[in-house]
Every structure is written in C-alpha cells, then in structure tokens.
C-alpha cells in the first residue's frame, strides 16, 4: 500500500483512540444520568447538574415530546416533560413512570412597541380567535372590550407557535381547550396540534426561539415558559393578565399559579397524571401544569436505578433540588410536601434495577 493512505487511516485511528481515552479518564466512576426534554425545565436541570455531585448529569433541550420518546426508547434515563404521557402512550409503554417534580406555568407574551410594560387583559376565546386568524388587528373590538381605555394600535397580530414537540404547546392548548369550546372541538390539545389556518402564524423552535422571534417582530404574540422570566424581561416583551374560570383577570405569579394547583391537590391520581389548566378559584392563574420526569420503571442497570432514585428524591426535597435557591431563581413552584409524600415518593420507589 502507500504512505498517504496509511497516514490518513492512522490519523483517524489516533483521533478515535485518544478521544475514547479522554472519555474514560473523564468518567471517574460516577454514574451518568442523561436527561433531555422540556426547554422549560432545561434551566432547572442545568442548575441541578452544576450542583449535584452524587452523579454526573448531562442535559439537553429537545422539547417535551422528544424527552418522552427518548426516555421510552432508553436513549436517556430522564425525560423532562411539561406534559404527562397520553393514554395511548401509556398503553403502548406501561413500564414508564410520570413523576411530578414541580409546578410551573407560562406567560402569554407579546411585543407591543411602547406598551410592553403594561399588562393587557386577554381571555382564552380571544387568544383562540387571534391564533385562528379571526381577530386580525390589535385594536379589534374584542381585545378593546377587555382593555377599556387602552390605546391599541391598528396593526396586524403576528402569532407564533412551537414547531417542536412541546410541553408548552400542551399547556397552552389545554388552557385554550378548556376555556374555548371552538378550540376544544376543532384544534384540541397536545404537544403537537393541528394549528388553525392563519397566514400570519409563524413557528419557532424552543422557548428561546419564541423569545428571539418576538423580540425582533413587533406586534407578535406567543407563549413562553415561566422559567424564562429573566429573558422575557431582557428582551423587553410584555405579558398578559388572563381571564380565569371565575371571570377575573389574573397576572401570572408563583402565588396565582400555586392557587391554581391547590384546587387539584386532593385529586392527583396515584400515577401522577393530572391536568390543572383553567383551574377554578378567584385568584387562580388559568395556565398551570405539573412538571414531569419520565423514567422507566425497570432500569437496565442497578447502578443507574440507585443513582436516579437518589437524584429524584433529592430533586423534590425542600433541602435539595426544590429549595428556594433553585425554585425561586427560575420562578418555579415546589411541590407541596403532601403531594411529595403521597404521590411522588411512592412513584420514585417503583424504580428498580434489572430483575
């Protein structure tokens, strides 16, 4: 043979070998817990990964839908999702656990030049009409009726949705389904839905993609996870107060989201799957959701099973991952202890290694 061929092959070989050598040096015996999924939970997992030392946690923001599917296929150990698995998914994959780990919500954000520090009042039916294109302009009578005395511009509304399989979409469309019969009947809810025909509708990837799009597109409107409060403010976007089931206009805050979650605390089933959108209660914010970690019951290795149980227990503990440091930083709401002991810990307990 000749020198060049050998040379190139050797180079490739050296690259591969040295890289693998590097990785073995890097692992140092700790179990690696791979996580991927919800972009809402991504900042939280990054914080946890930076501070949790008992295992090495790798994170990736791929969207709730991908998080669920990667957990099912075993590509990752922990699938982070703002949506619990649907009934068909549970039937096809009975060995998966939907473990609540926090409570969160989202903003209905908008970019109205000059008005982004005021809070418009919007309702489910109005938002549904905006997304399906029947409300075209910001100064539409329906929006003005909710905001008496506010000068709204005569500009076209540019709504944006999540192109990736998204738990935020699930949260948003659950709210719309429960508050607007037309949306419930025609579009429904899910991590992916059949979006209405609206030539102004744009798609973006990830919460960060939504924020970027809205920041550079005046008169846009979209839904953004509450864990991105800092970014929303930095981008100069405004967000709305929403009309809840009781008919009151409520601003999103940890208090109003907690009010919404309170309404359902006694109804959480043993498998953890419950939707808490459009909650009753005078002071409840109408968009709220439990945040889930999707994990296999039977892990392929007992070392991983032990490590993930330990990590999840730490994650929901008020002295660990659910302390004010993590939750407050990201505007998340820790699970009430009653929920943790009655529902979450029993679910974590079901994780085991291979038989």
């Amino acid at each position, binding site marked *: 043979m000749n020198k060049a061929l050998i040379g190139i092959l050797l180079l490739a070989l050296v690259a591969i070998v040295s890289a693998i050598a590097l990785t073995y040096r890097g692992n140092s015996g700790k179990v690696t817990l791979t996580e991927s999924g919800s972009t809402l939970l991504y900042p939280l997992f990054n914080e946890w990964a930076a501070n949790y030392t008992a295992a090495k946690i790798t994170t990736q923001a791929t969207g709730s839908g991908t998080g669920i599917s990667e957990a099912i296929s075993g590509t990752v150990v922990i699938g982070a999702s703002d949506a619990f698995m649907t009934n068909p998914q549970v039937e096809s994959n009975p060995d998966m656990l939907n473990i609540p780990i926090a409570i969160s919500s989202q903003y209905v954000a908008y970019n109205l030049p000059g008005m982004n520090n005021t809070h418009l009042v919007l309702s489910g039916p109005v938002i549904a009409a905006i997304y399906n294109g029947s409300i075209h302009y910001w100064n539409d009578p329906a929006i003005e009726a909710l905001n008496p005395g506010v000068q709204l511009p005569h500009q076209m509304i540019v709504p944006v949705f999540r192109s990736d399989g998204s738990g935020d979409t699930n949260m948003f469309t659950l709210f719309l389904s429960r508050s607007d019969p037309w949306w419930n009947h025609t579009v429904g809810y899910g991590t992916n839905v*059949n979006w209405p025909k609206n030539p102004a509708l744009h798609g973006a990837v990830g919460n960060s993609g939504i924020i970027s799009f809205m920041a550079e597109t005046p008169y846009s409107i979209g839904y953004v996870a509450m864990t991105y409060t800092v970014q929303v403010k930095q981008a100069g976007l405004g967000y709305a107060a929403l009309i809840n089931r009781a008919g009151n206009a409520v601003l999103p805050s940890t208090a109003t989201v907690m009010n919404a979650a309170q309404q359902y605390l006694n109804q959480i089933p043993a498998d953890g799957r419950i939707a808490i959108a459009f909650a009753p209660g005078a002071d409840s914010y109408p968009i709220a959701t439990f945040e889930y970690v999707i994990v296999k019951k039977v892990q392929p290795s007992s070392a991983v099973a032990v490590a993930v149980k330990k990590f999840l227990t730490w994650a929901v503990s008020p002295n660990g991952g659910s302390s004010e440091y993590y939750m407050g930083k990201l505007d998340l709401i820790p699970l009430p202890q009653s929920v943790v002991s009655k529902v979450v810990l029993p679910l974590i307990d079901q994780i085991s290694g291979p038989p």
Partner: protein
Amino acid sequence: MKADELAISIASIVPVAFILIIFGFLVFKAYPSMVYNGIKFFTSYVWNPGDISAEPIVVRGFKVSPGASFGILLFLTGTLITSAVALLLSLPASIFASIALALYLNERIRAVVSSALGLFAGIPSVIYGLWGVVFLEPTLYSRVEPEMRALLGFIPFFSGPIYSGSGILASSLVLALMVFPISTSIIYQSAVSLRDAAVNDALALGATKWEAGKLLRSMMRKQILGGGLLSLGRALGETMAVLMTCGGAINSMPTNFYSPINTMAAALTALLDSAFIDPTGMVLSSLAELGVTLLLISVASSMIGRAVLGRVALRGELE
C-alpha cells in the same frame, strides 16, 4: 475473472446497493402513508397530527390518531417558490459575474475570486442561517420589505401585510447566496474555455468586450441551463439556513411575498421530532413519504442537469 477484479467489482457495487437500499427503505417506510393519505398528500396543505391524546383508530388497515391527515402542498409550494426566487436572483448574477471575470478582469484577480468562491461554497449552512437570523432578517423587516412594498405594491403578491423578517424573502435570499458560488463556478469554467476557443477571435476582429460577452452568453446556453439545474438541486435540499429563516409556516399557504413559508427539507427537519412520540407510526411514515418526494425531485433535477452538462456538480468542487 481474477480475484482482485472480483473483489473490486463487488466493493464498487456498494454505491449501487446503497441507492437501492436508501430508496427502497424510505418507500417501505412510506407505504402506510401512501395508502392512508392517498392523493391528498400532494393536494392538501394541512398537516394534521390528529388528536394524539385519544385512542388510535384503524383506518384503511393502519393505526392512526383520530382526525390525522397529512398534506405537503405547503412544503412543495414553499420549496418551489424559494428555489425559483433564489435561482432568479443568483443565475443572472452568476452569468454577469462569470463573463465579467472571464473578459474584464486580469489574471490575478481572477485567481483570488475563484479561490474565494471555493471557500464560500464551503461555509456551513448553519452559518448562513446564523447570519440570516441576526443580520438579514432585521434589515429586511425594517428597511427592505417596506421599500419593496412601496415600489412593487401595485402587484398583489407584493402588497399586503409585512409580518416579520422571516419568510419567503429571507430564505430565498440566503439560498441565492448559497447557490451563487456553484452556478458561478460552472458557468465561469465554460466561459473561460469558450473564451479561449472562440471569443478571442471575435475580440481580435474588433468586437468590444461587451459584444464578445453577448457572444459568449449565446454560446453558453447549455452550460447556463446546466448550472441552473445543478444549483436547483442544491437549493432543493438545503436545510439549516432555510429552517432558520423561513418562519416555520404551517397549515396555511403564503398570501404574499412577505409571508412565512416552509420547505420540504426544513419541514422534514422540524417535524421529525413530533414523530418520536406518535404511538401509531403514521407521522414517521408521512415524513418518510415527504423524504421520498424530496429525494425524487432532487435526483430528477440533478439528472436532467447531468444530461445537459455531462456531469453532476458537487459542493466545493470548484475551478
């Protein structure tokens, strides 16, 4: 046949096998969608994943979410529009640039420009997309699109609302930039050889360079056509830059030049993750059918170009 010839023949069959396997596997995967979606796949612009939280139902022998129906007319249209605009912008520019390079500029500048073309063809698509998002889109939204509407607004397609900086214009411009090096290099190579073969004679007889240029252009019709077809092949398959600048439209056909759009390659990339959680597999099958459609169109375009020019052009293969 001797041993070495046999071994090499067998090894060389691998590309043939791969083409057959790629096409075959994708068609196999697409089969449920072909049966379930039927002709509506190409005539409907609605991509409806159905009610994914409800129990799957069985339709025409396949499990699907209730109400699911997949159509790619929007993506087909988007691919057509963006590629057409990209070619309309870049091909005349390529012709002008190639002839100017061949006739007007001196040897040293030519060499620099040629090498630069090669480098630009190698810039990754995602970097074109990055530039498109941070520089092009804001510029389009604040300056270019309003100007365009003011100038061309009497044509219905160029009037109407300007939604954002993303959309047909942004993705077509980025595509035009990306295919410009390819078509320029093909046309330039033929310009140089034709110049040496025939045009120098015209110049010797007293033609001005501009007239020689016109002569050159009329002799290069085949190469221009071929260059256009091969650029088209590249434009059709371009993914990341388009994905980042197209606006991610869904379920609605574009109403004007400033509308958000989606192309087959970009939609395939964006929608693939929604196939992961689909327990019925029909989304993946529909995406496979989308892939097959894109494959056939791209290969057909390149093969026509190959018939015209005698070869296929590869990205980065310049000079």
